[in-house]
């Protein structure tokens, strides 16, 4: 897993470094240090250190997953769905849907408590952010007034 993560960082760093060399100049037209100066140093250092770490840590013992990895994946997927739903359902409806789904998974069997929390918390958030602070809350595509 760690090697996979390091490999991912190495790939991204290689792409970053390639762009820094291909598109950004070391010196500006005025002869001063250009926009590519710092990114090239950062990119080369990152690639070198990631490659070195991959080499050094290749013999590290295999990591085992905890029994809770499934819950973590479900929670991360729910968070992604929540962000996606913001643009469609708008702030209030998507937060109610997210809270209901998350509590149904995490707090099983307590239907009344879950229903109260799924309605009360999003409503509080909406009142604080939209009404009190006049902050931006997504409207969504449904054209609802909240």
């Amino acid at each position, binding site marked *: *897993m*760690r090697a996979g*993560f390091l490999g991912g*960082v190495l790939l991204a760093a290689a792409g*970053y470094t390639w*762009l820094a060399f291909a598109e*950004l*100049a070391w010196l*500006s037209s005025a002869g*001063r*240090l*250009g*926009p590519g*100066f*710092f*990114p090239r140093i*950062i*990119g080369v*250092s*990152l690639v070198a*250190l*990631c490659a*070195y*770490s991959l080499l*050094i840590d290749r013999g590290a013992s295999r990591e085992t997953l*905890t*029994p*809770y*990895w499934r*819950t*973590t994946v479900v*929670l*991360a997927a*729910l*968070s*992604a769905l*929540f*962000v996606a739903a*913001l*643009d469609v359902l708008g*702030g209030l409806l998507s*937060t109610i849907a*997210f*809270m209901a789904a*998350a*509590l149904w998974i*995490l*707090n099983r069997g307590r239907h009344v408590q879950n229903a109260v*929390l799924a309605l009360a*918390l999003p409503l509080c*958030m909406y009142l*604080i*952010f939209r009404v*009190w*602070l*006049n*902050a*931006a*809350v*997504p409207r969504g595509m449904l054209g609802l007034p909240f």
Partner: protein
Amino acid sequence: MDIFGNLLLGLSVAISPINLAYLFIGVVIGMVVGIIPGFGPAAALAVLLPVTFGMEPTGAVIMLAAIYYGSQYGGTITSILLNTPGESSSVAATFDGYPLAQQGRAGPALVMQAVASFIGGTLGVILISVLAPAFSLVTRSFGPPEFFLLVMMGLSTLIVMVGGNWRYGVISALIGFALGTVGVDLETGNSRFTFGSAELIEGIDFIPIAIGLFGLGELYYAFYTGLHASGSGGIVQYQKERRFWPTLADFVETRVTLVRSSLLGFIIGVIPGAGATIASLMSYSVEKSASRTPEKFGKGAMAGLVGPEAANNAASSGAMVPLLTLGIPGSAATAVLLAAFLLWGLTPGPLLMAQKPEFAWGLIASMYLGNVALLALNVFAIPLFVQMIKLPYRLLAPSVILICTIGTYSVNGSIVETWLMFAAGLAGFFMKRHGFSPAALVLALVLGPLGEQSLRQSLTISGGSFSIFVDRAASLWILGITVAVLGLGILMRRSGVRE
């Protein structure tokens, strides 16, 4: 104006009813944040930053700073009663705090940690009042080479001092630097790594990254380790009766510890990158070495509890010195505070105290009042906070995700930044799982543009010669302190102090 005159000016700002209200809200939120495992002050500050948009700048910063130092108080309650630190800076409090609670001395331990936090915090603020103006005067002569060296000092200290693999710490910082180069290059006007996106022209805002790494990332990791399933069954019960209060012997036994640890904590806090966690662990180590009864440490020594507590609170005060006088944050939490300053058009640096005395001294004066409020809250409202410890994590977690997501969107009304926050959350989880440093990434992202600009300016001034970094006395001083701190960090690693 003298220090007392400035403090009176600051007090007149801090005691306005609205600022007092923000201060009280801030310390209560800070206490709660400290109690919740897996949700630190950096995440809380980042999430609550948008909430302050409707406030007056001084009141907003007073509240955010109160959350920051208030969290140092709250984290210890769970260390003592549950053997689970609410904050990394409260880890040392578990060594003797939990054994004290198991011996039926939870009440005295809770009161003594509050007193130690108060003394550390208050001594720290007194030292800020005296030293910050002097620091401002010294740092006015700093040029690009000194600022570049300070950036490097902060990052290298963070990487060496905070445990884990140093290579992964450097990789984390380099990722932060790389993210910091996205956007228009201010010196030449060239776009860098924007891929034609209008959203990326101004660069990557660090608020979504900080909320993702410290809010979502920590939360996913807490779930991965099963925090939601553990409950609060192991909580040590205590009774608010005669034995609740500490004895005179407790105070007499720890009087030197309190002063020594506060001074040590403040000095460590002033060094960018070192921070409250290192201060508390070093204080524990120093107190154990200085004690006539070191064998009691780890078995319920009061000095082993109050030393780290005084140190971590003094360190959080000390960290405000480089933040206010140089604009250099020493930790992820102070990096978010820096963002708050900038959002309000306040540029921390050598001239801040001279140009905005009502703001700088208002903040410092509010910290005196905040520490008094926290002492009272800690002693008299402990039962309330103990009830909070019992709140199940499975109910808290969805609320935290909700606040992180809506909070990020509300900063700029951007769904792209909300997705960025989610991506940073996933990255934060993997970084935490594999021993990388999200704090180094955020600090490098914040300091990257300053580091790049000062490096390019320095080399332009010197005609490309790196000797500019050793030419001036100030640069040599910074280099000397950096080498000393790094040497100490390496020694700590070798001697296994952190373990």
